[in-house]
């Protein structure tokens, strides 16, 4: 599967400034693995070691939010990663 991934500003230090990337995988986890292979360290800053999306990160497949990485993605899907933090 090939998907389009929206990269938030918090992660552009990993992606050489890119905010939109193509990635491969059948699940959100595999998409993140693909990104991590190209941009080492990115995955762990979005998902913890128990495969849970970090508290102040949000991942959507299209308009459906997921807090886990096992959710399937389809060819052509859009995966959106956001940083969402309140306070100072």
């Amino acid at each position, binding site marked *: 599967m090939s998907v389009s991934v929206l990269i*938030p500003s*918090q*992660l552009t230090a990993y992606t050489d400034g890119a905010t939109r990337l193509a990635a491969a995988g059948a699940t959100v986890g595999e998409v993140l693995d693909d990104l991590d292979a190209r941009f*080492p*360290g990115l995955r*762990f*800053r*979005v*998902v*913890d*070691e*128990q*495969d*849970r999306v*970090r508290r*102040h*990160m949000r991942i959507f497949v299209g308009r459906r939010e997921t807090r886990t990485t096992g959710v399937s993605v389809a060819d052509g899907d859009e995966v959106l990663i956001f*940083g*969402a*933090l309140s*306070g100072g």
Partner: protein
Amino acid sequence: MTDDIQLLIGTRKGAWTLRSDAARKTWSVEGPLFLGQIINHFVVDPRDGRTMLMAASTGHLGPTILRSTDGGKTWAEARQPPAFSKDDPHGRTVHHTFWLEPGHADEPGVWWAGVSPQALFRSADQGDTWEGVAGLNEHPKVLDWFPPMDGGTPDGPMVAGIVIDPRGARHMYLATPTAGVLETTDQGATWAPLNENVRCDYLPDPYPEYGQDAHQIALAPTNPDRLWQQNHCGIYRLDRPARRWDRIGDNMPREVGDIGFSIVPHPRCAETAWVFPMDGTEVWPRVSPGGKPAVYRTRDGGASWERQDKGFPREQGWFTVKRQAMCGDGRDPFGLYLGTTGGEVWMSGDEGESFRQIAAHLPEIYSVVAAPLP
């Protein structure tokens, strides 16, 4: 190494470096590094003077370790930051690394990391990859020593300090907020509490085996059998092989008390140490008592304390100095430094006789480390 000196400042919003020459009269402020990252600790390896590690996280992103092997000229992320195993029986995840400790002089390349939730990690490659220390992290009593909880300062209970006996790498102490001081004599394979006579004002049994909140511990460099402790409930001293701590904070002035976060031993005199008292009355404001900042120095092992406040604000100075934000530089005369949560850095170049502000307007300061410039 040169005679020049640097202060490595970790803040809630990035890292800064203050630099001076051997005279320590004028300081330049350089930075920020990693603006917006929460830097809990920023440490240089005294064994090579060039390897630097930062414990970093952000409000959004997970925790990591940032590394430099050229004295801070270039930085890269650790390939494998501290993380629990995926099959961790307690489902733990590292929230942030709090304390970074270069290993024993006999073990170049070894570093230790204390994290939140409370756990210990070890690196054998200058901080590039990290492994959990099973003897602590999987100890049968780990959930008794480190009960799962939210909150704390800052942002959760953490291993608040790591001390290595300079006489042997196998002997280490940890400072923790829920098990007090823990000791190992086999480099982390086994651990035991070391809290006799250390008070817990907040538990039904005020002198339990564990449950104490050790804010910071330090060895006297010239007598590694002497252990200083600034605890949540007072200032203590222990002379090994004894196991019973003495509350030397009882000798502090009553109106000041013996509550604080930091304790700094003198590099050449085992009888001398400094603390920065903070208000532990009523709702525990943890600011300078009465709004009058001062350090207190003992020169007799804690039998007596003298106030040192020359140069600090005489009134309306509500300083909070966190546990990693007070340090010395080892020089002669000894330089003493403290960073406040209000973003000010103060120093004394005369062993506490007088202080002056050398930086202001920084973000909330979490850590201050003095080191020679490479």
